[in-house]
C-alpha cells in the first residue's frame, strides 16, 4: 500500500474522538499518518478484488467492464483473539470512483484531492499491455484504487465527508445521493477557473511559487517516466539476448568430451539469467506507479492554485469596482467628471439633468456601493479562509510528498541491490560451471 495509513497497525488504540481545533491543527502538522483520522480509527478499508462484468451501457450497447470489490470492516480487533468480523462489501466501477473524485474536487476546492490511478496505461515499455482488460493492468489499478481510498480516508478534512462515507457503504443509493448535492453546478465554474486566463494584480507569492513548483514536478516526473520506460525496454533486450548463450552452449557441449557437462550447466544458468528480467521489471512497475501518483497529484495542486488565483482575481475585481463606484459618487456629488460615464457625457451634450434625476442616481449608486462593500467583505473573507485552508493543506501535502518520494527512492535503491545480487548469483553459478569445464 502506498498510502502509509499506519493506523491499520494501531487498530487497538482507542483514540480521543473529542479533538479540539488546536489538536486538529497539530494533527495535521505531525504526520497524521501516525495518529490517523477519525474514519480510519473506525474502519479498515481495502479494495480486495476485481471482476469482469458485461452489461448494457448508456447507448444500449454491450460492454465489458471491470468492477472492484470494496471491503470495509470495523477497526477494533476482537478481544481475546478469534477471527475478525466478516467485512461489508460492495462493488464499484472506475467511473464511480471518478464521480466521487469530481464531487470532492468541487466541494473542497482548497484541498489537494488525491488522484486516481490512470484511466489508460501510459508510459509503458513495450512488453506491458496497454489494454484496460489486461490482468496485470487491472491488478495495478486495483492497488491504485485502494491507495486512493486510503489517502482520502487519512485526510484530516475529506475523510469526514458524508458522500465519501456513503461511497464506501451504500452500493445502491450512492449515485442519487451525489446528484442530490447539486455539485454539478459547481463543476462548470471549476472548469472555467481552470481554463480561464486572467491576470492577478497582487499575486500571493507563496501560491505562485507552489504552482511553479508543481509545474516543474510535473515536467520532471513525466520525463523520468518516459526515459525509465525506454531504459526498461533496453534492459529487457540485454537480458533476453543472454538466453541465446543457453542454446549455443548446449549445442556446443554435444561435441565436447570433458568440457561438455560444464558448458551444458552453464547454459542453463544463462537461461535463468534471461528469465530474471521479467520479475525485475514487474517490481519496477510499482516504483513507476508511485511516481505516477505524484505526477497526477501535481494536477490537483495546480487546480488549487488556480482556484486561489480566481478567488483573488474576483476579490481584486470587487475592490476595483467599489473604488470606481465611489469615484462616480464623488463626481456626481461634486459635479466633476473624472470617470467617464455615458450618462455623464450625454447629459453634458444634451443638457444637464434635473436635480431629481441626480438624486435618484446618487441613491442608486449609494445602494450599489453598500452592496459592493458587502460583496468585498465576503470576498475578502472567502479569500482569507481559502488561503488559510489551502495553505494548510499544501504544507501537509509537501510533507507527505517528501516522505513518500523519499521512501520510493529508497525502495528503488533496494530493488537495484536485489537486481545486482541476482545477477551476481547467476554469473557465479555459471562461473563454477565454467571452472569445471
Amino acid at each position, binding site marked *: 500500500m502506498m498510502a502509509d495509513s499506519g493506523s491499520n497497525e494501531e487498530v487497538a488504540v482507542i483514540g480521543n474522538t473529542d479533538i479540539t481545533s488546536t489538536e486538529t491543527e497539530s494533527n495535521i502538522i505531525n504526520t497524521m499518518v501516525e495518529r490517523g483520522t477519525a474514519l480510519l480509527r473506525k474502519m479498515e478499508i481495502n479494495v480486495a478484488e476485481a471482476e469482469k462484468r458485461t452489461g448494457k451501457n448508456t447507448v444500449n450497447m454491450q460492454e465489458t467492464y471491470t468492477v472492484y470489490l470494496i471491503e470495509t470492516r470495523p477497526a477494533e480487533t476482537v478481544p481475546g483473539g478469534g477471527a475478525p468480523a466478516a467485512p461489508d462489501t460492495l462493488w464499484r466501477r472506475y467511473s464511480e470512483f471518478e464521480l466521487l473524485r469530481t464531487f470532492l474536487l468541487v466541494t473542497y476546492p482548497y484541498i489537494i484531492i488525491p488522484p486516481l490511478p490512470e484511466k489508460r496505461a501510459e508510459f509503458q515499455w513495450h512488453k506491458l499491455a496497454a489494454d484496460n482488460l489486461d490482468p496485470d493492468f487491472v491488478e495495478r489499478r486495483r492497488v491504485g484504487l485502494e491507495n486512493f481510498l486510503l489517502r482520502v480516508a487519512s485526510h484530516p478534512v475529506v475523510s469526514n465527508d458524508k458522500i465519501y462515507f456513503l461511497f464506501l457503504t451504500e452500493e445502491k443509493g450512492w449515485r442519487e445521493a451525489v446528484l442530490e448535492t447539486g455539485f454539478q453546478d459547481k463543476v462548470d465554474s471549476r472548469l472555467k477557473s481552470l481554463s480561464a486566463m486572467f491576470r492577478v494584480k497582487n499575486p500571493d507569492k507563496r501560491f505562485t511559487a507552489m504552482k511553479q*513548483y508543481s509545474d*516543474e*514536478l510535473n515536467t*520532471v516526473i513525466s*520525463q*523520468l517516466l518516459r*526515459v*525509465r520506460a*525506454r*531504459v526498461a*525496454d*533496453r*534492459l529487457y*533486450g*540485454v537480458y533476453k*539476448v*543472454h538466453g*541465446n*548463450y543457453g542454446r*549455443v552452449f548446449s*549445442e*556446443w557441449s554435444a*561435441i565436447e568430451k*570433458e*568440457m561438455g557437462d*560444464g558448458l551444458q550447466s*552453464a547454459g542453463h544458468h544463462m537461461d535463468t539469467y534471461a528469465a530474471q528480467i521479467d520479475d525485475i521489471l514487474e517490481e519496477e512497475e510499482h516504483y513507476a506507479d508511485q511516481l505516477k501518483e505524484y505526477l497526477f497529484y501535481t494536477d490537483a495542486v495546480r487546480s488549487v492554485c488556480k482556484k486561489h488565483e480566481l478567488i483573488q482575481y474576483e476579490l481584486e475585481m470587487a475592490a476595483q469596482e467599489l473604488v470606481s463606484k465611489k469615484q462616480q459618487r464623488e463626481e456626481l456629488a461634486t459635479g466633476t467628471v473624472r470617470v467617464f460615464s455615458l450618462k455623464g457625457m450625454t447629459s453634458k451634450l444634451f443638457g444637464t439633468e434635473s436635480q431629481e434625476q441626480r438624486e435618484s442616481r446618487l441613491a442608486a449608486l449609494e445602494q450599489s456601493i453598500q452592496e459592493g462593500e458587502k460583496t468585498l467583505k465576503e470576498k475578502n473573507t472567502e479569500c482569507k479562509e481559502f488561503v488559510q485552508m489551502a495553505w494548510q493543506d499544501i504544507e501537509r501535502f509537501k510533507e507527505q510528498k*517528501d516522505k513518500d*518520494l*523519499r521512501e520510493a*527512492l*529508497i525502495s*528503488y*535503491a*533496494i530493488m*537495484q*541491490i536485489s537486481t*545486482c*545480487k541476482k*545477477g*551476481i548469483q547467476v*554469473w*557465479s553459478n*555459471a*562461473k563454477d560451471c*565454467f*571452472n569445471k*569445464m
Partner: protein
Amino acid sequence: MSVGAPRALASSGQKPITEILHPLSAAEEPLSVTVGGDKEVGLTNGTPVETSSPASTSSLFNRLQLDDDLEADVRDPYADSTEMRDLFVTVDDPKKHVSTMETYITYRVSTKTSRVEFDLPEYCVRRRYQDFDWLRIKLEDSQPTHLIPPLPEKFVMKGVVDRFSEEFVETRMKALDKFLKRVADHPVLSFNPHLNAFLTVKDLNKRQGLALLSKVGESVKHVAGGYKLRARPAEFCAMGEYLDTFNQKLGTIDRIAQRILKEQSEYLTELREYGGVYSSWVGSEEELRRPLEGVAGCVTTSCGALEDLGDNMSLDFLPVLREYVLYLESIKNVLRKRDQSQAEYEGRLEAAILRKQEDRTPMPLEVEKCQDKVECFNADLKADWERWQSNKRHDFKQLLTGMADRNINSYEKSQAAWESLITLLQDKQTEDKTSETN
C-alpha cells in the same frame, strides 16, 4: 647459431611414443630417424639432420626434458612444466615509430633460454606485426604437419578501428604474446630455426627477403599433386566434423556477444539520460535533494561499470573468439594437406603395384618415402590435436570464467554504490528523528 637442431622428437617418428627407445639406452637406433639429408618438405624442419654425430650431453638432457614435457603437456599444458621449460618468451613494451613512408608499432620480444641452439642465454629484439606474420608463414611452410597457432587479425578497417589506440595495441600485443608462447611451448615448433632467427636476429628484413622467394616455391609444391583420396581414416573425419561444428558454434557465440554489446550500449545511452533527469530534479527540491543526488550518483556509477564491462568484452573476449576461428581454419588446412599426402601415397602405391606386376621390380623408394610421410603426418597431427584440444579447453575455460568475472564485477560495483546510498539515507533518517525528539 647452431645448425644441428635435433630432429622432431618422439611424437613425430614412425613409431608411437611408447615404443620409442630412451635416447640414452644402449639400443641400436638413436632417437632421430632420418631419411637422408634431402630437403623434403613435410618431414624435417628444413635443415639436414646429423644423425651420426653424437648429441652433446646437454642437448640429450634437453631432449629428455622435452620428452617428459610432452607427456605432461598432453595432460595439462600449464601444470608444473615451467620447471621443465627452457625457453621463455615475452612480448611487451609497444612503441610507435614514425617514418616518412609509414607509421607502425613495434613490440619488444624478450627471450630467456638455456638451450644450446641459442648462442646466448638472453635476447631482446624489437619486432612488428609484419615480422610475426613472416614467422607464421615460415612455420606453416616448414612444419606443415603441425598445427600452427593463429595470429590476431592482420587487417583492420581504417576509420573503424584506431590502429594506434592504447586498447587496440594492448589487445594485439596480448595476442602476439600468446602466439609466441604457444610456439615456444611446442616441442617441435620451438626448435624451428625460423623461430630462432625471429627471436635473435637484429635485422630481420634481409631474412624476410630471401624467405619470400623460397615461400613461393614451396607453396607451389603444395598445390601440385592432385591425387584423389580414397578413404580418410575415421579419426581425421571426426576431426574435420568437429572443426566444422565448432566453427559454427564460435560464429554463433561471436554474434551473440556482439549483439549483447550493442544492446548494452543502447541501454547505457538511455541510462545516462535517466540519471540526468534525477540530477535536474534536484533543483526543485529541498528535503529530497540528498536522495535524488544519491540516486543520480548511483546511476552514474552503474553507467561507468557497464561501460567498463563493454570495453573489456570488446578487448578481451571477442578477439580471442576470432583468433580461434582463424585457428580452426588453419587446422582445416593442415587436415587437407594430410589428405593430399595420403592421396599421393595411395596413388603412387597403386601405380607401383601395377608396374610391379609387370616387371617384378622391388617397391620403389619414393613410394616408401610417401608412406613414411603419411605416417609421420598422421602421428604429428594426432599428437598436436591432443595438445590443441587440451589448450583449447584451458583457453575457453579462461575466456568464459573471465566473462563471468567481468559481469560479476560490474554488478558488484553497482551494488556497492546503491548500498552506500541506503546507508547514507538511513543515517540521515535516524539523524532527523533524534533531532525531532530532542
